[in-house]
């Protein structure tokens, strides 16, 4: 029975994996880049200037002044002074539900200090944020559709991990095992090794990814517990935090100086530990000023709430109100990794990269395992399709991402809808890779796309050199490692592509038997 169980779990792992591997690959590539989203932003907005630290309370004053001019009647203001990575510059944000209802209006600006004037976008770009958003929204899908698709993919990833664990024959005996140049054995070893070594990360990232989707498609536990009374449920946040519900009074009243209120937060939490300020119903009698503390893990952190007209402290919350929410919040915090410093951020990036490789090796192993023993045998459309789709996805998506960066440098600065065109270039590049993968012989397609990737990666620092002044010679001599790393990573990916291309082009030599590996003792059930 034990053997039967493992066989059926291998079967499930194989097929859920195969159907969703390309989507998951896309999710992992864009999500991994998302760990460096604001760094990519910096690279894609060379005119934007480096992060400039500025005095906290004068930043708040400048933010308050700007919002008072642009959005005096907003429902919420958010002011986040520059804090390095997360907010490279002072950021002001407002939103408002329009009088007649409908979608919220909002405004979002970066201000340069000390004058508090808005920073103009010279080069319209989606930046790293667009890449990061793709990992849970896809692109080109209307409304919430992409979100639903990615939520389903995440669930399948979760099933894939669970079945993968139980299907693995000897996790501990193979803990350090990677057998080189042994055909399909090597691919399976690599897939297993990458999966086992990153297992805590994979479990965390997938389960927390599911938590993000709770509201979307798992609302019934909450609804049912509240007797399907949606109105009661909508107050759940105030129930959790034991907050008062504030509503607009309609009587206008002047707002106190936000900076002086924030001083109380600095006194309590220490210098540099106030992440930002939210003002609810500014210029109203019931205005509230909420200070948010810099969080360790997760989206929920300590807050202090003040009366907006008197500046009097009304209430405080501390951390997570209960253990279950703390667990969920910590997982979400770990997923986002906002707390990570440079070392941990690179580790996150590495974990993501290993995840990408895990999915890629899994997809390739499916093909290698089913590779026909002789070239004459008929393999069918499905197999061929998967083989070529693998090329177009695994190599093609990486090419597409680099094309996105090229587009950022080469598209005319004054092009209409420039940010959209960057993304169009990325997906057109990807489409070209798919077409190329389908019309070329398989081995040739792999090699050629590896060379294309290498060329584009090596070209990127050169284009950067020709079009901007944040090229390697400047960034390295100034010790600007954030921007230098971008070009260096591009070169590293290029080198990896060259290595892969050389390895693969050896297979092109005739009389080579690499493609006709002997069949190893594998359970026949997973052959499907």
């Amino acid at each position, binding site marked *: 029975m034990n053997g039967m169980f493992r066989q059926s779990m291998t079967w499930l792992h194989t097929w859920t994996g195969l159907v969703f591997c390309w989507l998951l690959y896309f999710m992992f590539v864009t999500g991994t880049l998302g760990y460096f989203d604001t760094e990519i932003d910096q690279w894609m907005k060379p005119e934007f200037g480096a992060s400039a630290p500025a005095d906290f309370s004068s930043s708040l004053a400048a933010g308050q002044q700007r919002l008072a001019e642009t959005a005096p009647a907003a429902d919420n203001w958010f002011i986040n002074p520059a804090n390095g990575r997360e907010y490279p510059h002072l950021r002001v944000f407002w939103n408002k539900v329009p009088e007649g209802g409908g979608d919220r209006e909002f405004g979002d600006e970066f201000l340069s200090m000390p004058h508090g004037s808005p920073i103009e976008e010279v080069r319209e770009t989606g930046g790293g944020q667009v890449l990061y958003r793709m990992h849970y929204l896809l692109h080109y899908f209307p409304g919430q559709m992409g979100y639903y698709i990615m939520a389903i993919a995440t669930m399948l990833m979760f099933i894939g991990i669970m079945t993968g664990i139980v299907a693995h024959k000897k996790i501990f005996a193979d803990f*350090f*095992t990677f*057998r080189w140049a042994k055909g399909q054995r090597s691919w399976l070893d690599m897939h297993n090794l990458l999966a086992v070594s990153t297992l805590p*990360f994979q479990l965390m990232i997938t389960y927390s990814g599911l938590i993000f989707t709770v509201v979307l498609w798992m609302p019934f536990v909450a609804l049912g517990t509240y007797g399907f009374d949606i109105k009661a449920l909508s107050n759940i946040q105030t129930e959790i935090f034991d907050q008062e519900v504030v509503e607009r009074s309609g009587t206008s009243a002047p707002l106190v100086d936000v900076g002086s209120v924030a001083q109380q937060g600095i006194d309590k939490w220490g210098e540099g530990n106030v992440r930002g300020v939210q003002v609810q119903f500014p210029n109203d009698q019931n205005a509230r000023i909420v200070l948010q503390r810099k969080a*360790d893990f997760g989206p929920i952190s300590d807050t202090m709430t003040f009366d907006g007209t008197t500046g009097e402290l009304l209430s405080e919350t501390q951390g997570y109100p209960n253990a279950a929410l703390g667990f969920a919040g910590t997982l979400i915090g770990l997923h986002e990794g906002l707390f990570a410093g440079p070392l*941990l951020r690179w*580790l996150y990036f*590495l974990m993501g990269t290993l995840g990408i490789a895990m999915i890629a090796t899994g997809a390739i192993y499916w093909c290698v395992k089913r590779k026909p023993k002789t070239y004459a045998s008929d393999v069918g459309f499905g197999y061929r399709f998967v083989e070529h789709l693998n090329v177009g996805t695994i190599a093609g998506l990486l090419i597409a991402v680099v094309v996105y960066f090229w587009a950022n440098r080469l598209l005319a600065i004054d092009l209409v809808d420039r940010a959209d065109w960057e993304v169009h270039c990325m997906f057109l590049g990807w489409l070209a890779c798919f077409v190329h993968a389908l019309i070329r012989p398989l081995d040739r397609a792999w090699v050629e796309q590896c060379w294309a990737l290498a060329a584009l990666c090596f070209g990127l620092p050169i284009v950067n050199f020709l079009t901007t002044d944040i090229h390697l010679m400047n960034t390295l001599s100034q010790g600007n490692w954030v921007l230098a790393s971008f070009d260096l990573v591009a070169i590293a990916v290029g080198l990896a592509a060259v290595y892969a291309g050389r390895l693969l082009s050896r297979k092109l030599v005739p009389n080579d038997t690499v493609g006709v590996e002997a069949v190893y003792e594998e359970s026949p059930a997973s052959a499907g």
Partner: protein
Amino acid sequence: MYVLVFLLLMLGLVALCLSMNRHHRQVFSTSVSASRQRLLRLIGYPVLILSAIVAVNAYGVGLGLTLYTGLFTVAMLLCAFTMTFLGAKKS
């Protein structure tokens, strides 16, 4: 401190790796004796636990364990690929 955590992790994982027959053979060309296996395990597990304690002590529970997990992955892969490399040189 993370350098120390990483070095301890490497030490522990290499010890555990060598306590396995397959990998001992890759390095020394002989099977691992029972007494040496016991010794290597006696080094490996406590050192892994020790490095976790060092991490938690230096960075706190949350950050410490996160960092530990990440470095564990790196150390484990490094160990595995070194074994592959040594094994290939042997044969």
